């Protein structure tokens, strides 16, 4: 019984460590052929940059790792992000990025949307353009 308990605790501890390790990966990927400068990423996700040459950019949020993305890349918390978009939307008449549930949904959106850009927790496949790793 005691050994089972120790094993269970060890598993929980290692699971937490493994999850933390898994959350370390953060990639920004765009539709094939769309490239972004690192300085533009923040502007894209805050609606300040909407075009890359003639292509309209369509950023999407990944709910599963949004908090990590906001902290590491946009340098803001989720409350500030929501307020910023509320102001932006009602001032300029543009909509915030649609929210996707996970990597698979983001990847699917990026692949089928010209100008689509989103962030992933896992290494993106080769058929999308990786524009940043954080």
């Amino acid at each position, binding site marked *: 019984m005691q050994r*089972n308990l120790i*094993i269970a605790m*060890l*598993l929980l501890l*290692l*699971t937490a*460590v*493994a999850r933390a*390790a*898994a959350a370390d*990966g953060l990639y920004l990927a765009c539709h094939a052929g769309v490239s972004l400068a690192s*300085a*533009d990423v923040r*502007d894209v996700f805050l609606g*300040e*940059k*909407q*075009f890359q040459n003639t292509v*309209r950019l*369509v950023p*999407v949020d990944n709910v599963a790792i949004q908090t990590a993305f906001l902290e590491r890349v946009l*340098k*803001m*918390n989720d*409350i*500030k992000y*929501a307020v910023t978009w*509320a*102001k932006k*939307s*009602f*001032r*300029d*008449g*543009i*909509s*915030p*990025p*649609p*929210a*996707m*549930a*996970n990597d*698979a*949904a983001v990847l*699917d*959106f990026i692949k089928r949307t010209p100008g689509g850009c989103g962030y992933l927790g896992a290494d993106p496949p080769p058929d999308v353009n990786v524009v940043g790793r954080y």
Partner: protein
Amino acid sequence: MKRRLRLAAASLYAFGALGFACNATASDKRDDRITSLEEKLDRSLKLIEQLGARVRDLEAERAGAETAAQASQPTPAQQTQSPPTPVQAAQSAAAQSAAALAEQQRLDSVEQQVAQLAAANADRGGRGAGVPLHGFADVGIGNHSANEPDLKGANLGALDIFLNPQLGEHTRSLFELTFEVDEHGDVQSDLERAQLGYQFSDAATVWIGRFHTPFGYYNTAFHHGQEIATSLRRPRFLQFEDQGGVMPNHTVGAWLTGTDRLSDGRLTYDAFIGNGQAISSGVLEPRSGGVEHGAAIYGGNLGYVFGNILNGLKVGVSAFRSNISDDQPIGGITLDRITRVDNAGVYFVYDTDSVEYLGEYYRFNDRDLTDGGASHRSSAGFLQLAWRLVHVTPYARFERAVLDQSDEYFSLQNAGTSYYRAALGLRFDLDEKSALKLELARTKNTDKAVAQWTDALLNYAIRF
């Protein structure tokens, strides 16, 4: 079997943890080494998940088998009957496998539905799924009304309906329809903003219609929905025309706006031209239906948004000139008189996760074109400091307006009085889309109708 699996899982976890530990300690080594370790860790995690699922399956099967065995144990009456045959046991196991398969299919179906909902949500947020309706509303209570110091008690603020249909890659639109209650309790409706635009690029969007005149920062950053603003009410001289403001907050015309990235920040600009406003019955009127004599307002705004260390800071300058007519009767005769209003301003905003600092200052240099009289100088400005805590945002604001009463632009406006106001307030964010605001303010009119009063106000504002 179960113990072996647990030990195997623990070993694999340990292997994964070792991989992670190696990864962490060798973070400064070559990337391919890190990538290799991450791949090993991923493979290990997948294997662990598979083993865990297998353990759960085995436990479920065993529990099911025990239940089945208990159920199939013969009762005393049944003991005379024959024991279950191997065929019956096999049938029972097959039934359990079928049930497990059905459960797995059900889970797969749910997962697929979630993915479809996510995709549908993406489409709705993007384009092609109708026009989302947004809006704002607020109500208030106080010893004075927020905008009408002669009234007190409870009051309705505004119901602000907001639409921004997404029409295409370059075509943009924005409509703001507001219902407000005036000082007589009558509901007034206003098409506060009605803009159709074409976005050529990030650097150039042309809007045509009725828009917020792009002077300073506050007038274009905040609109009729009060929830979005930190404070309970706008600075008094920046109030909308029909609520006691003295600035031409709305323009009907054309507006070119854009932004461009520089090395360490962004440059923003606005240029606009539109119908010159008129003063009608003591209130500025944007002349949404057109003007008779071609009087016009035109101006621009130039701002710089800092990056990196000063991220959140924007500074800028703005200016406009407007030929503003009035219908004030003189000697029983109503004459169209024109005042040329020249306004120049500077502003800053520092908006971060933790603070919001705003400041604006404007100078007027107005001239009566009808009489060719002397110029009149006036000024107005405010400074607002707010600190964002977890659920509450305290703020302080000081406003001052010194308006020349020999300038018809101010003397003919009901609200064109010099004043100062000091305010302290608290904003409580009840949830993501509603806020309760409290404000205590001291206001003093220093000319025209000299008066002073203290406001204690409560406002409940939402957006949807």
